[in-house]
């Protein structure tokens, strides 16, 4: 299959061998079905071993897979009547973020997401899913619109990070991100965020202040990319694999750290292996999330979000440290 990753190679090779043997059996008189059966049993065992012990770095590779479904893939399958809205009304339209209105199970929602391209041409247009300030300002405009019309907001997170560029700094990348964190904290409607690929730093968080945060099983969410961490910590970007393990960036890690609410399971080998199944899995979690948040008053929904973030973080006291009560 196209786009196989390094860690899957043993499985891929064994599969190839089995199919070769099958072809051989069909074209000659020799009956190799006993061997094939044996190999198939081995394949199943190998698949279990490999896919149930996916290492953090393998997940990084899956999260970055060029064929991994993007926000628009999920939007077109999960929602009906999606109407895309453009522009921040100040500077321009940033195609690294898409957003608009749609219906979900027949009810109106606002949906926003980072958007990577599927090929080089689209990636250039969408700046590889790395937004400029106008992208965040468009997102905020749509969120305020959702608040005005009392519809819930769904955000798909999938970015390497906010774009590090001259124009981005000139137009206030910091302020744009900060403003989103500030305003999202006060939204009077439910906000559900789902990390579908890479959740890269402040650029991801700027769409990520939600009542619930869910993560696809093989997505990542981190303060800095593994490469960035490695170059800062050990001055060596090639130690990214080690950084991916140290930084605790996978969905199970974030669940354990109390950041993420639900882990949404993926098909074996990643979401790109089975889009339909992935859509179903997201649908199940998203629907339950929105249902559970629908009973809250405006004040309660803000309070719920406030408390969620207030609880994140770990520290101790000096007295504890030096052994005094």
């Amino acid at each position: 299959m196209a786009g196989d990753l390094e860690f899957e190679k043993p499985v891929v090779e064994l599969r190839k061998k089995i199919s070769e043997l099958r072809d051989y059996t069909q074209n000659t008189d020799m009956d190799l079905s006993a061997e094939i059966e044996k190999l198939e049993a081995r394949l199943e065992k190998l698949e279990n071993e490999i896919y149930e012990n996916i290492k953090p770095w393998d997940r990084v590779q899956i999260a970055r897979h060029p064929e991994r479904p993007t926000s628009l893939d999920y939007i077109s399958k999960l929602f009906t009547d999606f109407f895309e809205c453009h522009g921040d009304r100040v500077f321009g339209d940033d195609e690294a973020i898409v957003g608009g209105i749609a219906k979900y199970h027949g009810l109106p929602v606002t949906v926003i997401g980072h958007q990577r391209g599927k090929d080089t041409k689209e990636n250039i247009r969408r700046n590889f899913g790395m937004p400029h300030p106008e992208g965040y300002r468009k997102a905020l405009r749509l969120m305020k619109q959702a608040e005005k019309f009392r519809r819930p907001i769904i955000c798909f997170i999938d970015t390497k990070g906010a774009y590090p560029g001259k124009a981005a700094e000139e137009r206030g990348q910091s302020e744009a991100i900060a403003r989103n964190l500030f305003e999202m904290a006060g939204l009077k409607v439910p906000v559900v965020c789902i990390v579908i690929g890479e959740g890269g730093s402040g650029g991801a968080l700027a769409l990520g202040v939600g009542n619930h945060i869910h993560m696809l099983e093989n997505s990542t969410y981190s303060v800095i990319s593994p490469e960035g961490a490695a170059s800062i910590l050990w001055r060596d970007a090639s130690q990214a694999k080690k950084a991916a393990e140290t930084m605790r960036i996978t969905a199970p890690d974030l669940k354990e750290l109390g950041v993420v609410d639900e882990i949404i399971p993926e098909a074996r080998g990643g979401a790109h292996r089975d889009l339909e199944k992935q859509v179903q899995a997201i649908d199940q979690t998203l629907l339950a999330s929105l249902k559970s948040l629908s009973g809250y008053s405006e004040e309660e929904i803000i309070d719920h979000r406030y408390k969620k973030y207030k609880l994140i973080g770990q520290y101790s006291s000096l007295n504890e440290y030096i052994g005094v009560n």
Partner: protein
Amino acid sequence: MLKELFTKTTKKKKYATIPSETAKQDVPEGIMTKCPSCKKIMYTKELVKNLKVCFHCGFHHQMNSKERIDSFVDLGSFEELNNGMISGNPLDFPDYEDKLEKDRLKTNLNEAVVTGTGSIDGLNVVVAIMDASFRMGSMGSVVGEKITLAIEKADELKVPFIIFTASGGARMQEGVLSLMQMAKTSAALKRFSDHGGLIISIMTHPTTGGVSASFASLGDYNFAEPGALIGFAGRRIIEQTIREELPEDFQTSEFLLKHGQLDAVVSRSDLRETIASILEIHQPGGINRWQEI
């Protein structure tokens, strides 16, 4: 003869002077400071008296949290909050605890921010001062929580919240928990703001990354000290991505002012007065004060 004289003096120089113990103590390290901008050398004590602003070129030397409190808050009014909070090691990050311990000893601080209540010209405030000498002022769980608690305190006391930022950004060793402190502090500011609270942010050198992309940029009034480095992404990263040279003043206070990100660049000697007059204008009452006329 001239020659004789010359030999005599060189002979004299053969004797080395060993300073006595007391003399050694009289000359503590750092008695002189060299200005990194104009390279001129001056007495540290006098420099501190001048709010650490160079006499010759006006360069603003970094201030630590203690110097900031001494020079900004009314004498004797400062009462520290949550001083005893210290970082854990939530990711079991190698060497993190040692680095924290080293910085605690070096700086006499427990973390990279000092928060407390105090007054400026008699007007009560809650103030948070980040200190770049502790882990480069980076924000982990403790910095995020202390700032959040300080904002909540300002909300409770119904007084303005003033923050001096100085930070390299989110603290790497606490991973995504550091990132989430951006959301936590911003949420606290939003709540405080919705209750009518006044937020003043004063960015000092350096204010970058996750700190610039959260509370530093969220003041009702955003100020910066002259010449401070302020920005989201590092200069080197940007140069690598866009492969072109950046202007010399890129990501300085002056650059931000020019691009509409600041209300003003205020030199340290005018800072206290500027903030005091803003606090005075925001005394409770607002539009109702007009009825008194």
